């Protein structure tokens, strides 16, 4: 059932830009048209491009937003999920809890080495 819905009407998450539109809906309560427009503007594409997996795979790679991995290519230089979410938070102007905690941890003073 999950696969059928995903293929029939889903935005295909990390394979395209569905996760980014979902973040604007959940965090800001944006309706679908507004959320797609917001994300498209931030990415410099049209709303229709957001579910174009070929275009989004390239763009996500360039902007270091995280993407789907498959076996025929090596993605060793792609960002970790945490790094990708730092870029996503910056791109979309969102405060993501896991990012805020990570930054706070880096800024925390550590005891001096003896």
């Amino acid at each position: 059932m999950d696969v059928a819905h995903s293929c029939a009407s889903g935005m295909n998450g990390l394979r395209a830009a569905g996760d980014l539109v979902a973040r604007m809906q959940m965090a800001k309560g944006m309706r679908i048209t507004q959320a797609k427009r917001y994300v498209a503007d931030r990415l410099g594409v049209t709303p229709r491009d957001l579910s174009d997996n070929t275009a989004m795979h390239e763009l996500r790679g360039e902007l270091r937003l995280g993407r789907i991995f498959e076996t025929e290519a090596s993605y060793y230089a792609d960002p970790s999920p945490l790094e990708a979410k730092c870029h996503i938070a910056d791109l979309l102007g969102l405060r993501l809890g896991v990012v805020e905690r990570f930054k706070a941890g880096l800024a925390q003073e550590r005891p001096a080495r003896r």
Partner: protein
Amino acid sequence: MGDGTLFDTTRSAIRTDLEDGTQAAASRAKLPPLEADELDHLLDIFASPARFTAVDIGDEVVLSKDGTGTPQLGSRVDALYAYEQVLAHDTVELFHIDYSFKAVKTVVPFEQQYMKEAQERLTVPVHYGAQPDLGRYSEPDGPCGNWAQLLPALKIDEARAAQEAAVELAVDDMVYVGEALWDAGADGLNFDTAGAAGDADLLAALLAVETLRARHPDMGIMVGMASEIVLGTHGRLEFHGTRLAGLKPAGQLRVVQEAGATVFGPAVNSNASRSTAWNTARALTFVKPCMAAAEIPIHMNVGMGVGGVPMNAFAPIDAVSRVSRACVDVLRLDGL
């Protein structure tokens, strides 16, 4: 069919089912039936011999998900990762198999640890979900009187008092668990099947949402409903002056919006004895009034046994894809 069985039919029989389905909802809820052009489009979708159907390119919507994962995928976080990388879902949801805030409260530190791990392994939004599950607060599972026993005994005042006491306990638990998972990095919370135990169950969810919204302005909060009409197991409960018993999807949306949720999920239960076309037309008729009233995204529930999807643990893809497309094409939903 509504139970997932495959059967042969005709285009004219499907047309009749669609008209009967929309009329069933219209008369039950005093709503306008679907328009003729909407029924024509549904007929094209359901009378097609194709195994699979889908929305037009560019019309895709966000998919949110209750309880992400299957037993074949290893640990819970492995399952979330597979849904992100293999199935390409827009969002995923970490959940405990008991799926009740009351039950989760007892293991919340471990759920926080799983959320931390999920957040470190996934890029897509990871939500945390459970049910208000008000029945758990009644005897013998909880400390409150059992209104399911008090009501048949005509102890109406006692039944109402028991539900009011349960609401207070449930709100405390939902706020406690919600804040714990938010603190562990959750991208949002899902209050699933709100109203399953009636108007008191919905009130508990709304009060929890209101409290969380006041304390955490950035928190994503989704409220998914249990059914198309809120049962009046208490009968007198109100949220900010709106009586909850008897609320239909558009009314449910209004109180959920008012409480401060960012996503609303209407639910319309499927009839296993009727066709998928009949169930879908009925579900769309119930949900359609939400679309004009919505200030927040509408993610219609289209899982097992709701929204027109057959009541079958392995719902056939021909049926699911038709429901999926029909919901988006006819209602212009924000998500599923």
